[in-house]
């Protein structure tokens, strides 16, 4: 699919807010030609869409021999803020490795540009974690309107994704060990020593991989977002599998959406499909259909008859993202 195909497909789903990863979708990044920018806005007009957000990366390890300085990191953020502005986005995803100091130092520039820098709260982080607490401290202390949070719903994985466990079985994992991992995760048991136990039970690489996965997913109560609603400007609606029944297998959006509604959230739920990589070995991947189903689910949970809703379809439907 071309970039235009992605935008058209999102619009067809009724997902009119487009989130884009410039480093993925714009050859020549960080240099955007005027021609590309014109084309982009032409697409937005043609398909009735708008730019909901851009996603920045922060290459602190750009050089082989040294870390970027604070100034260089801030310059990288500024560059991405400029790109967001040219593409018409008011929101920029700050990747999880962005430090609180860099956020603080970049905030005035973003504020002046009319852009919000939202730290992606990605698994295994949560609102009590020291790293997030340090970010919150900066956000509350500076009170900068340019800083905020972008929760990734991969932080609310209540059930182990079956696309992942079924893939492990296809890769040769032992059924009883897959069952142990899935059960331990689903009961929110102690995944700390799960790799050890899988090993004591004779597990191989596929079993290990699965046990390691179980330590990467997390579940916590979505209501925790209510404490930080003024900071939450955008949501990355991570998902692994929209079933034929139109629900996400692992992530309880029927609990998440009401929390966001209660909290007065009026931003985008931006689709982030991460099941493709787990099924591509055995099944045709239909990312567009998966995104379509997710948006139909959002419409249902929001009580909308009309499937046109403020949700955004990421342009990255065919690929992974953090």
């Amino acid at each position: 699919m071309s970039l235009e195909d992605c935008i058209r497909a999102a619009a067809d789903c009724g997902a009119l807010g487009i989130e884009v990863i410039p480093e993925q979708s714009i050859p020549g990044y960080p240099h955007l030609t005027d021609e590309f920018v014109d084309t982009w806005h032409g697409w937005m007009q043609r398909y009735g869409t708008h730019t909901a957000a851009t996603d920045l990366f922060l290459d602190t390890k750009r050089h082989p021999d040294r870390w970027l300085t604070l100034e260089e990191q801030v310059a990288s953020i500024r560059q991405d803020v400029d790109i967001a502005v040219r593409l018409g986005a008011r929101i920029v995803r700050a990747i999880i490795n962005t430090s609180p100091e860099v956020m603080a130092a970049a905030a005035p520039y973003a504020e002046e540009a009319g852009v919000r820098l939202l730290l992606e709260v990605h698994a295994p982080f949560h609102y009590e974690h020291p790293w997030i607490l340090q970010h919150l401290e900066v956000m509350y202390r500076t009170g900068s309107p340019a800083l905020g949070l972008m929760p990734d719903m991969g932080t609310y994985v209540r059930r182990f994704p079956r696309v992942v466990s079924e893939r492990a079985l296809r890769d040769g994992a032992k059924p009883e060990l897959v069952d142990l991992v899935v059960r331990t995760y689903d009961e929110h048991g102690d995944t700390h020593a799960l790799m050890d136990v899988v090993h004591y039970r004779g597990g191989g690489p596929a079993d290990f991989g699965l046990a390691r996965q179980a330590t990467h997913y997390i579940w916590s109560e979505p209501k925790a977002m209510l404490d930080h609603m003024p900071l939450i400007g955008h949501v990355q609606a991570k998902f692994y599998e929209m079933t034929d029944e139109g629900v996400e297998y692992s992530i309880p959006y029927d609990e998440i959406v009401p929390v966001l509604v209660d909290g007065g959230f009026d931003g985008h739920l931006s689709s982030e499909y991460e099941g493709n990589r787990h099924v591509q070995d055995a099944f045709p991947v239909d990312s567009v259909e998966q995104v379509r189903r997710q948006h139909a689910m959002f419409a249902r949970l929001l009580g909308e008859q009309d499937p046109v809703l403020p949700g955004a379809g990421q342009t990255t439907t065919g690929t992974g993202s953090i």
Partner: protein
Amino acid sequence: MFDQYIVCEEGFRARDDGRAGGVVEVRMPYYRGLTLSMVEAVDLVLDGRPVPPADTTLTVHGNTYAPDQLGRTTDDRWEMGERAQLAFLTDEPLAPGEHDVAVAVRLRISYMPVPGGGRDRKRLTLAS
């Protein structure tokens, strides 16, 4: 998830400059483009024998780099999905027919504590 796309099925050919060796087209196993300074290695094993990195070059959209130039190249990128040309030298000209081509790409990803990248191996037929 991108490993299977590293070695391109098409475009495996002799070198343009007439020297013994060949060119294989390769993609980066990652979901975004990356500045070349973060491409730590593109290693080639041909028919089971490692090709010394110094005998290879990587070409992205017409710009050619020796492996030891990549680390300091911060103004050019290998784009997502872009077919780069991995050119290599051999002692003898490549025999016509099938060859076993294995490529390992190592990337330095700033948000990951461990190296990124991936590996792929295919049997390719030399274009005649």
